[in-house]
């Protein structure tokens, strides 16, 4: 087993060695935030935990937008966030609507989000950096993180999952936890997670663009250490999706998310649409002079509560994190990393409780507010399904502002008449506006 795992000597300490006969209490597949939070919590309680990660290091296969809501780390260990490898604390929340060269930006600045000496609400984050740090913390608690090993499949016995197969070796545990992310080949093989649909996921593409900290602070109006989050509507050529920009310490993460089913019929490469976003007159000045250092892509689940698999466990196996569909996109905030961590903690608490792990896990997910929170915002999916959100309404917004700020020698017409004119220009009937209004009201 030692040979199979290729464990470096420093991972073998901790009071036990792994022999062929040994069985782990828990094997976790995937060293993302869900898997690591679970491993940390279990190892801290003295459980014998193995995390298997296919990347060379934890986080090396992972991409986020991204930002992270800090409370989740406090559930793992109070105060742990203080030493976490995070970027800037977000104090500016911005939404932009684009139409052609025009754009409208809402900029909400709230210094209290910096935590005012206490815990900041959220941070921008780079996953290769954060996950590796988080994994090192779980190791300090005694978890074994075995990187560079891909789990090929599960081992079952009389309907019960008893272990995993990896690179020709077999490893056994009382419980296997699938924390293998959005594509979750493992949870699908186990029959828990259904096949992904091109309508209910997004494909995100992202460039990391390096800029000096001072330049970032000047351009976004930030104090040192503070950050901005910018979400963009109307930059996807009408495809369901949107853009994002997050300020890191010395870079910005600029990206775009597209619904694959629509993007596949659009006739233009998602990469090309994204490249045009970089050159948009409202975006270019923010990144001018910067240097792209990495290009990433990842899927993200967009369905929210209704996309959670009907069964999150079977005998010997539990699913956590995005593999279990724990992502919340309500348009103006997008959450996933925090939910992953919360679900990892819930799974660990279920194991520690000594009860039957599967049902106990569901109970913990409720107690820790994860399922109730996702259920509370379930309707947003309907709101974000409105096709006019992604092209027509951003055009209406910029059209209205254009008419407000345009001055010439003509006699100005009344505001209502002008708004009607803008709606008509964009092919939106009063009836469809009312319908979308009712749908929006019901959704949220």
């Amino acid at each position: 087993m030692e040979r199979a795992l290729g464990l470096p000597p420093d991972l073998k300490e901790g009071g036990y060695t792994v022999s062929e006969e040994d069985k782990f209490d828990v094997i976790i597949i995937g060293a993302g935030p869900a898997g690591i939070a679970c491993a940390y919590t279990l190892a801290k309680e003295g459980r014998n935990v193995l995390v298997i990660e296919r990347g060379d290091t934890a986080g090396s296969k992972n991409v986020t937008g991204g930002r992270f809501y800090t409370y989740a780390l406090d559930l793992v260990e109070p105060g742990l966030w203080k030493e976490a490898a995070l970027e800037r604390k977000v104090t500016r929340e911005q939404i932009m609507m684009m139409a052609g060269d025009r754009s409208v930006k809402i900029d909400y600045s709230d210094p209290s989000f910096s935590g005012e000496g206490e815990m900041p609400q959220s941070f921008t984050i780079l996953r290769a950096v954060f996950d590796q740090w988080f994994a090192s913390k779980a190791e300090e608690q005694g978890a074994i993180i075995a990187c560079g090993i891909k789990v090929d499949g599960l081992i079952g016995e009389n309907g019960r999952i008893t272990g995993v197969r990896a690179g020709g070796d077999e490893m056994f545990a009382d419980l296997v936890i699938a924390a293998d992310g959005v594509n979750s080949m493992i949870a699908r093989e186990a029959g828990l997670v259904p096949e992904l649909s091109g309508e209910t996921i997004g494909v995100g593409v992202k460039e990391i663009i390096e800029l000096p900290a001072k330049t970032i602070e000047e351009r976004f109006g930030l104090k040192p250490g503070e950050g901005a989050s910018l979400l963009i509507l109307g930059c996807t050529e009408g495809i369901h999706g949107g853009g994002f920009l997050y300020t890191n310490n010395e870079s910005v993460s600029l990206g775009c998310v597209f619904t694959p089913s629509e993007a596949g019929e659009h006739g233009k490469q998602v990469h090309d649409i994204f490249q045009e976003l970089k050159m948009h007159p409202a975006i270019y000045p923010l990144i001018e002079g910067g240097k792209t250092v990495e290009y990433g892509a990842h899927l993200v689940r967009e369905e929210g509560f209704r996309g959670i698999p009907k069964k999150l466990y079977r005998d010997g196996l539990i699913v956590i994190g995005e593999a279990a569909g724990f992502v919340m996109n309500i348009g103006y905030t997008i959450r996933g990393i925090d939910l992953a961590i919360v679900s990892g903690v819930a799974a660990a608490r279920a194991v520690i409780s000594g009860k039957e792990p599967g049902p106990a896990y569901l109970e913990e997910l409720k107690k820790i507010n994860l399922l109730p929170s996702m259920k509370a915002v379930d309707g947003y999916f309907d709101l974000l399904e409105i096709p006019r959100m992604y092209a027509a309404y951003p055009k209406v917004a910029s059209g209205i502002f254009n008419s407000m700020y345009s001055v010439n020698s003509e006699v100005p017409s009344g505001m209502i008449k002008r708004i009607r004119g803008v709606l008509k220009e964009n092919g939106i009937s009063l009836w469809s506006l009312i319908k979308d209004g009712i749908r929006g009201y019901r959704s949220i």
Partner: protein
Amino acid sequence: MSIQPIEAAELLSLNRFNVDEDEPHIVLDKDICNSKCRLKPCLFVCPAALYKLDKNGEISFDYAGCLECGTCRVVCKEKGIVKWEYPRGSFGVSYRQG
């Protein structure tokens, strides 16, 4: 270098890859792609633009440079992708930022 549109291939060259020369993690049955699949959504959704049409209008694909997002697998309705797995352990893309 200032900000400008960058070709996908050039963007990929910024990333760190350890390509598994012995075992491709994605395999196509190009007969299916060329004869059965009219829409070829993979041409448009692959963030790395690894699916292309050659001069005869037939599909060409190189798994080196794959960002392992899985989008092609999901949109492949005609099942021209006959194998889609993550690369073997430690192979493939390694993000330094993520």
